[in-house]
């Protein structure tokens, strides 16, 4: 036991030293630096479309990014279906029945050729949307995780990254169906992940209250960010890839900078008393849209850390949110079984 104690002391000592070192570069705070910037005007977005069709809680949604599918998005619901929507017409392009109805995540490949999903089955299932006979079929079932699949994101048509309740993330080779790299280090369930704009790194948020930045090729953890007091449910990159945004059950969102290696600001309000479930940054990074347990989405001025808008329209928890690749529309998915398009 003595050795463990000594080791812990050493670790704590190093942590203190690091805290001091980080303070040294704090020649200002973000709040001070933006004091002269005007607050963004009140943002009032309206529901332009409501996507109806799911019969149970929606747990995840993801926009297509390729120019051919930038108006398409995929959603996953506990009714055991993946639906690919044409958000402009509200038509269902595909309605894919799943083997397991306990789905928790879904993803759209950047090429638009595939979608993926997973959940309590501990697997990531890849579906080919562009099959020869027009039918959507399971292409691969990636099985290796020993816990639920919380999130998945494609790097390209041959690689996908998954995060799991087994506290690890895995980079998979889709063609061979095998694990390329296992990213271990979190001490709690990994709840969410996001890939950097240059596809070289990814970040994961976990129930150990920390967020970790991973180098995909080097297979190492580059940085760890702490500060949250409860599970991190949602995570995303600032559009230029230099900062990370997290959302937590402690009712706050935080912005961490990669180059300063520390927290820049916290998005909180005394009137917000529920967890953050999901988040997305607007195209310029000026706005942060975050979904909460109280059925609303709060829109924050990311620099000034003040609320500048609310999206109210769902009748149950907002479970997922995404901004389209051209930044034009925001899509929310809820436990009320509906998706809404806002702008």
């Amino acid at each position, binding site marked *: 036991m003595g050795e463990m104690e000594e080791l812990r002391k050493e670790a704590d000592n190093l942590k203190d030293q690091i805290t001091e070192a980080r303070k040294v570069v704090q020649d200002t705070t973000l709040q001070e630096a933006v004091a002269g910037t005007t607050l963004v005007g009140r943002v009032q977005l309206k529901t332009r479309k409501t996507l109806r069709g799911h019969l149970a809680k929606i747990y995840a949604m993801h926009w297509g990014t390729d120019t051919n599918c930038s108006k398409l998005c995929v959603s996953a619901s506990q009714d055991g279906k993946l639906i690919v929507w044409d958000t402009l017409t509200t038509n269902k392009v595909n309605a894919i029945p799943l083997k397991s109805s306990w789905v*928790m995540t879904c993803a759209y490949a950047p090429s638009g050729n595939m979608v993926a999903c997973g959940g309590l089955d501990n697997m990531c299932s890849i579906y080919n949307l562009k099959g020869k006979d027009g039918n959507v079929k399971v292409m691969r079932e990636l099985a290796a995780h020993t816990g639920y699949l919380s999130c998945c994101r494609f790097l390209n048509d041959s690689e996908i990254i998954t995060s799991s309740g087994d506290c690890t993330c895995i980079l998979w080779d889709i063609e061979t169906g095998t694990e390329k790299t296992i990213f271990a280090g979190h001490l709690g*369930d990994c709840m969410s992940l996001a890939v950097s704009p240059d596809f070289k790194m990814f970040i994961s948020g976990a129930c150990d209250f920390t967020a970790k930045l991973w180098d995909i090729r080097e297979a190492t953890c580059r940085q760890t960010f702490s500060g949250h007091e409860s599970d991190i449910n949602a995570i995303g990159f600032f559009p230029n890839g230099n900062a990370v945004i997290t959302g937590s*059950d402690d009712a706050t969102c935080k912005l961490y*900078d990669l180059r300063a290696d520390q927290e820049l600001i916290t998005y909180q309000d*005394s009137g917000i008393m529920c967890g953050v479930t999901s988040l997305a940054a607007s195209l310029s990074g*000026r706005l942060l849209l975050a979904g909460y*347990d109280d059925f609303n989405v709060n829109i924050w001025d990311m620099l000034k850390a003040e609320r500048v808008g609310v999206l109210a329209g769902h009748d149950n928890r907002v479970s997922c949110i995404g901004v389209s690749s051209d930044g034009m529309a925001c899509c929310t998915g809820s436990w009320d079984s509906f998706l809404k398009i806002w702008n």
Partner: protein
Amino acid sequence: MEEGSRDQGQQCVGTTDPEEDSPNTIIYRKIEDVIMRLQDEKAGGVAIRTVKSFLSKIPSVVSGADIVQWLMKNLSIEDSAEAIHLGSLIAALGYLFPISDHVLTLKDDGTLYRFQAPYFWPSNCWEPENTDYAIYLCKRTMQNKARLELADYEAENLARLQRAFARKWEFIFMQAEAQVKIDRKKDKAERKILDSQERAFWDVHRPVPGCVNTTEMDIRKCQREKNPQKVKKSVYGVTDDTQTQSSVHQSLPSQPSRKPTREDVQKEISFLNMQLDRHCMKMSKVADSLMSYTEQFMVYDPLASTVEPSNPWISDDMTFWDLEASRDPSQHRVKKWGFSLEEALKDPAGRDAFLKFLESEFSSENLRFWLAVQDLKRRPLENVAARAQEIWQEFLAEGAPSSINLDSHSYELTSHNLKDPGRYSYEDAQEHIFKLMKSDSYARFLRSNIYQDLLLARKKLVSSSNVCFHFPGQVIDGQAADRADAVILTLPGLEGHRQTPLEGP
């Protein structure tokens, strides 16, 4: 009903068993702090009074309007709608309730509300079984009071439970009788309060059909219950071996929470050492970088600025998207290419323009190499090795037709990678070439005619007669046309745009 802690009245704080720390713990604490302050009349809380109604008194109530006002004042909420929304959340979770309604929302009027007893607080991690609910509904039918009459949905629930528990209904009936006896011993006013609190508890755990069940947990969080096999505590102190495992997540194996091992801590130490050596950017620089990025891109952010010509979602006019996709880019789009090389290459038209410029400088091999490598990364595995070799032959081999300039270290590394060619064999080389283009060619591109013409929208107006007219007052090649009547002709066949001003009249 359990006599113990409840009789201590409404002042005791709900105790959270540390073993049952739920992800909602922090939220509950925040709300409970507000609830305590709300009820503390001496410290500025709301006035909790007994209200006289018809033939009776209603003890211990407060109006919805009072609660809304308090929330606005004490939590600095400016908008009453927001205060109502927050208050409704607090009610839906079960911390306060309307005395005459099963639906748990807060109204900004004279509707009367009561505070929930800490015994029933959500932070106590209640997951009451159907046996408890059956006992509750059963005892309600035994008491002959108008206010305790079952609502339609409750009567339906009772009927369903009677069928489900047909074999042990006698047991449930007896438990209900016992509860009625205990209740009768209590003071009348106290009973009114306790009955309403008990009802509010069931309104949370067995909500009115159509109302959101706030006790529903994200299934990902349910998995983390430290001891899911533990028999859940009963509201009425009933210990029953045959309690049904009602929810599906009960039967799944629990994920043991990891405790750090010695190896974990050692790894952490080496990681921390690496972090200590890290060179960090100053906050002021970071802040500047964030501010300038958002400033640059805000005009392109449809959620933060108005978009020209119109937002297709609102106007149903696709022009905006047509313009974005066209190979003939607008000035607005071209301006973005000047923000960074990354932005220029994101746009296919930008790639084309940059390539055209590099061709004019006879250095297009760099960009072509970069594009080839980007493409390689997206190829199906079976084609990768062959394509990687092709790229080597084209750009890096001795006597290559489009020879690129790599430093010896990068060259050797790439050559080594090519022994076992893969999608990422050229990562290092690609980064080098990108940096080269960024620091060298890109800046010249932005100053070039090819770029400037697009940026300043110097379009051919009358292409058939091969003349270009520039409107006076435009900035041309960095110089403002200072003669309002200057007209510049471009003669066909000339390279680029050599302007030859005419002698004015």
